[in-house]
């Protein structure tokens, strides 16, 4: 079997990128984003992208870099509050955005990877999200039909991975990454540590290797914090 391990982000994306493609990118805000693969996509210059991601990074980091570079034609996202350029481009009509409720977005991706073409949800009934969509009553309540999402490529970030493509995420950096890994025609994963096969706890694997086609160890991670909030050491702990 050919190895899944790639030496760097650029070679990991070799042959996968084309103008007009759909890319899913894991992460919530800047937490758990595939930093190195995003940089490699920026350097490739590929354009007219449809990007599926909960957010679009911030000005100057993460997917915000692709936005600044004019590579994104359309975003499918739930929240853009942290990105001024995004808001401006959208309001000026220069960026197409399919606003999707966060839970619906997660489920559309999950469905895409699980071979389920559509599902019904209460979320968004009676709002602009429901426009043009089929509704149906179940047990006296109205539900909205949402279609699954798939992508030509999904890029995800995990904490640890092995040569099989098995992945383990860390804390809230997991977020959209596991579903996106399943919904890309090809999934490229970048990890902080690439460990010898057999050393991951098999009961603790979040993404089984079948979903991951290529894997690389990121050379460096900035893991930028979006909003640093702390408490002084003198204060007593309270939830």
């Amino acid at each position, binding site marked *: 079997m050919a190895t899944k391990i790639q030496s760097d982000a650029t070679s990991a994306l070799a042959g996968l990128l084309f103008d007009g493609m759909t890319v899913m990118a894991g992460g*919530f*805000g*800047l*937490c*758990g984003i595939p930093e190195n693969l995003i940089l490699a996509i920026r350097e490739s210059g590929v354009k007219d992208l449809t990007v599926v991601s*909960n957010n679009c990074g911030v000005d100057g980091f993460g997917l915000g870099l692709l936005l600044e570079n004019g590579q994104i034609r359309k975003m499918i*996202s*739930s*929240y*853009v*509050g*942290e990105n001024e350029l995004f*808001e401006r481009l*959208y*309001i000026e009509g220069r960026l197409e955005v399919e*606003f999707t*409720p*966060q*839970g*619906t*977005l*997660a*489920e559309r*991706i*999950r469905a895409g990877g699980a071979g389920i073409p559509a599902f019904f*949800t*209460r*979320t*968004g*009934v*009676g*709002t*602009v*999200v429901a426009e043009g969509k089929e509704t149906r009553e179940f047990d006296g309540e109205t539900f909205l039909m949402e279609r699954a999402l798939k992508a030509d490529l999904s890029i995800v970030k995990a*904490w640890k991975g092995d040569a099989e493509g098995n992945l383990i995420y*860390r*804390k*809230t*950096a*997991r*977020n*959209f*990454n*596991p*579903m996106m890994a399943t919904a890309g025609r090809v999934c490229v994963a970048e990890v902080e540590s690439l460990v010898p096969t057999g050393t991951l706890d098999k009961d603790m694997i*979040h993404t089984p290797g079948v979903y991951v086609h290529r894997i690389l160890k990121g050379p460096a991670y900035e*893991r*930028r*914090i*979006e*909003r*640093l*909030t*702390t*408490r*002084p*050491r003198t204060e007593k*702990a*309270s*939830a």
Partner: protein
Amino acid sequence: MPWTRDDMTARAARELKDGFYVNLGIGIPTLVANHIPPGVQVTLQSENGMLGMGPYPFEGEEDPDLVNAGKMTISELDSSSYFNSAESFAMIRGGHIDLSVLGAMQVAANGDLANWMVPGKMVKGMGGAMDLVAGVKRVIVVMEHCEKSGRSKLVRECTLPLTGKGVVDLLITDLGVFEINRGRSSVRLVELAPGVTLEEVRARTEADFVTDLA
């Protein structure tokens, strides 16, 4: 004197019951966590994938992999668990969360809520708010009673794009507390902030409401 943001969130915290699983929206609702009444233990859900959200970390102990839905660094508790976004919203949509506290731009007498965009001017996106109002058992809104221009935010009918239809149970503003009851009954003013008069509330509220308060 009308309530401050701290007062409003303290009032919202009185709606918490022991054993509740609670989701607090970003912005003002986050402050509810500072006012959890003694003897009441709740588990905070963060929709980006965590149950059992702890307080802000001590300086120097912040972890970029541990943030809440507002992207703020937080800490974990012994009881915490992590999960992916689909699981998180299964929890929310599936009716497993007892209470959600959200901010708003407009609340209407029929229980409609608008809190995600002003067409042509401002767009943040709905984030998880549409899922929360569609799935959580009880929805409380905390907001300023009026816009900076003085215009009432408790309206007859929302003019902004909706987050949900007939979804608000209780509204807490700087002027008082209103039972909205998802629009199934008339809006009822049930509490006034100290020093605020009924006349003042009437003058500053677009929506019709009933009250037993003098």
